[in-house]
């Protein structure tokens, strides 16, 4: 069995285009997901059940169902309702890129919210007491002390979530988008070379994963330096 290099070389532009699509979807999903995760995490650490329970239910349902089902519910499912098809949102909701980004953002918001809530709960009590002693209001306490500290400490776990999300974006190829996996499926369909096509896609994902791991290492060194063991 020979590995067909020529086909892969010829389709490299397709793969590079796929890398761009993958990164675009990933960045959009992460940005909106994190923006949604912060208020959800604040709800999750609330002591009032009326505030806490809705956020708990949201993260529980999202984390308990497969990403594929969520994507299909949004992309294929919503079209079932006439009200949706006639609404002003329909041009967006019938667009595969929009639906993929929406589904991924919702998914990552639930996981990120739990990570962030865990990190908020693990705040050293001394930090909170010091802020109270300085006379900070609740809002100031959250803005100046709790959130910056919790976001930093969430970094190692959040890096895992980002890598999981990179892998999740491969599902975009199922709703017709030509991301890295989509490129591989196109190549496979054209030349019937599944080994070559998907191995190349795998290599691209592996590279992106390593780059992300490296980037988060730098970020941790920069923002978590104060937690690192002291040298010498």
């Amino acid at each position: 069995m020979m590995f067909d290099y020529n086909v892969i070389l010829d389709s490299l532009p397709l793969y590079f285009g796929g890398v761009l699509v993958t990164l675009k979807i990933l960045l959009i999903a992460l940005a909106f997901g994190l923006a949604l995760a912060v208020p959800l995490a604040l709800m999750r650490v609330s002591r009032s059940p009326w505030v806490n329970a809705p956020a708990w239910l949201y993260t529980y349902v999202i984390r308990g169902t497969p990403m594929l089902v969520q994507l299909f519910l949004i992309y294929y499912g919503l079209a079932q309702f006439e009200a949706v098809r006639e609404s002003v949102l329909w041009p967006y909701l019938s667009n595969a890129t929009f639906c993929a980004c929406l589904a991924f953002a919702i998914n990552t918001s639930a996981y990120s919210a739990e990570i962030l809530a865990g990190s908020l709960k693990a705040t050293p009590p001394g930090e909170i007491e010091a802020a109270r002693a300085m006379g900070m209001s609740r809002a100031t306490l959250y803005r100046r002390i709790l959130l910056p500290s919790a976001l930093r400490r969430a970094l190692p776990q959040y890096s895992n979530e980002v890598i999981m999300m990179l892998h999740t974006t491969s599902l975009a190829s199922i709703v017709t988008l030509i991301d890295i996996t989509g490129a591989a499926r196109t190549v496979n369909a054209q030349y019937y070379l599944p080994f070559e096509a998907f191995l190349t896609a795998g290599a691209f994902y592996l590279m992106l994963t390593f780059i992300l791991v490296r980037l988060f290492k730098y970020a941790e060194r920069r923002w978590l330096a104060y937690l690192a063991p002291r040298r010498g």
Partner: protein
Amino acid sequence: MLHGYGSTILDGAWLTLTLALTSMAVAIVLGLLGAAFRLSPIKWLALLGETYATVIRGIPDLVLILLIFYGGQDLVNRVAPLLGHDEYIDINPFVAGVFTMGFIFGAYLSETFRGAFMAIPKGQAEAGMAYGMSGPRVFFRILVPQMIRFAIPGFTNNWLVLTKATALISLVGLQDMMFKAKSAADATREPFTFYLAVAALYLVLTSVSLLALRFLEKRYSVGSKAAEL
């Protein structure tokens, strides 16, 4: 409400559960082997285990599924004629699914098991040796029961991810509940109804698993102290 598709979807749910359980069994075997390789003092074995864990965990499940499923089919049919078998071989999607999921999650579990074995204090194995137990006996009587205690949280997580990931196997033709829901959605033009029903079934599956594994964790934590806050 489900236009009589309820029972087909439940059949699919049974297949999903069977697939998840069988794949997990394969993954546990591969995970233990992977952990043993990675902890081995023999350099090339450790490197092999490390490569397996890193490469598989760095590639999306979907890509691996497509690679193993289509690539595997291709490979079998390229090799079979050389062995004098001329008919086209169709791989059973269930068997392919079990091996694919088992292979992928074996890599994740090798990480969990490795961490769990390393969390056991060295003195435990030494004490076993001092009692005159043989190597395998120390392994199965002393190390494995304690390893399970440390591995349960990571194992729970992996089991939940695996259960949800089985939905992807429907894309290569296994008639699990996702596949059945898709057929029903196409036939009735009511995709939301059927995908929502399947989402609810997955939620039941994950909820029951969480409860069962929490019970197991309690059982294996008997005798270990937790600091009171």
